[in-house]
């Protein structure tokens, strides 16, 4: 199963957040799965049209995803998926 990891910054809003094994097949399914465990978290990562928020990045095995609009980048069963905030603002 792939593993999803989260930036510490999200743990400020969702305190129980930790590395999570997932059987989901797509990034969008992962977010829906996470939203069941942590209601509202999906809206922190993607906007209401489903696109990745401008200052949020998702890495799959160290590679930034290409498709920020529909989140169709693929991953494998042993992938590590990292959801992180971009370094921006002040």
């Amino acid at each position: 199963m792939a593993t999803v990891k989260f930036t510490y910054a999200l743990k400020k809003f969702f305190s129980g957040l930790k590395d999570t094994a997932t059987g989901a097949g797509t990034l969008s399914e992962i977010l829906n799965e996470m939203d069941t465990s942590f209601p509202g978290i999906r809206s922190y990562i993607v906007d209401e049209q489903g696109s990745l928020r401008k200052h949020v990045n998702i890495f799959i095995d160290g590679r930034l995803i290409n498709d920020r609009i529909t989140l169709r980048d693929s991953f494998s069963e042993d992938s590590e998926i990292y959801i992180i905030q971009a370094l921006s603002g002040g």
Partner: protein
Amino acid sequence: MQPTVLLGTRKGFIAWRFSNNRWQVENLSFEGSPVSIAYADARTGTWWACLDHGHWGVKLHRSNDRGNTWEEVAAPAYPEGEEIKEGIPATTRYIWAMANGGKNFHSRLWIGTDPGGLFMSEDAGNSFQLVESLWNHPTRKEGWFGGGRDQPGIHSIVVDPRNENRIHIGISCAGVFETIDAGKTWEIRNKGMRAEFLPNPDAETGYDPHILVAAPTNPDILWQQNHCGIFRSIDAGRNWMDVGQADGPANFGFAITVADDNADQAWVAPANSDMTRTAVKGALCICRTDDGGKSWKAFRNGLPQENCFDIVYRHALASSGDALMFGTTTGNLFFSPDRGENWQVLNNYLPMVYSVQFAG
């Protein structure tokens, strides 16, 4: 004077309270997060924090215990597939206005957003729905555009207390719109306004009312600090008259507030023209009219008169009885106990102030 003031700032929600003859900070919430609007619903005492997380999007929180605890509720969201313009998906970029629906509609709330959508809740804010009649208004896609923000935004929602289904809204840039049926249909109310920045200054829409307010004692009297002057209407927005000073200082600015007990008395916070957006001649003043805009007096006592760059954002000047309060872009907070004639500094070290509201 109401004894509480809520501030929305670039680094949090701050509540001040007046007790024992002095102002003190009562509550700091969401430290570090931009709060576009800090709003108290006078009907219930509920506090609302409209957050603009740089990373995580726009969020909405409410508190029923004066900020001790907060509950996140779903922020207004555009329906799937909606677009600002062809090919640009519509998402809530900013909450720029909040108003309660009035005493006859206990559970009604309104929210104005960038990119131009008005949202309504009929369940005390548990959920918000896009007001589609306005979003689908034939002028929106071609006749509205960004002003102050990249996309059009609704920053003013004025509910008429005599008929709470009658609402005026202010949009930058589109102008003033009125509904008399709680948002089912809309009329454009831009007659008499100017839009010097448009190729056609008499356009139907595209005007830039920086903020729109009504006189509490006569809601047919509307005031606006506009990009192109100060305008007043005595017929609920059907006709507007420029009542600013052509040579200033009461001319360009963002904020305006009207007295609780006098529809002819209002205050503005002048700024340099849209070229620089700084304090006029490096000095701060608040201008007051006592005669419906025929004349203005500039008050400076207690305000910085040199080396000053502060301006006052559109929601950051408020009045309550004899009291006035305003916060500035450089984090200064000023209080007047006597209708603006004399000023005291409450704080020089705040974050940029976005909103100021008196509350109970």
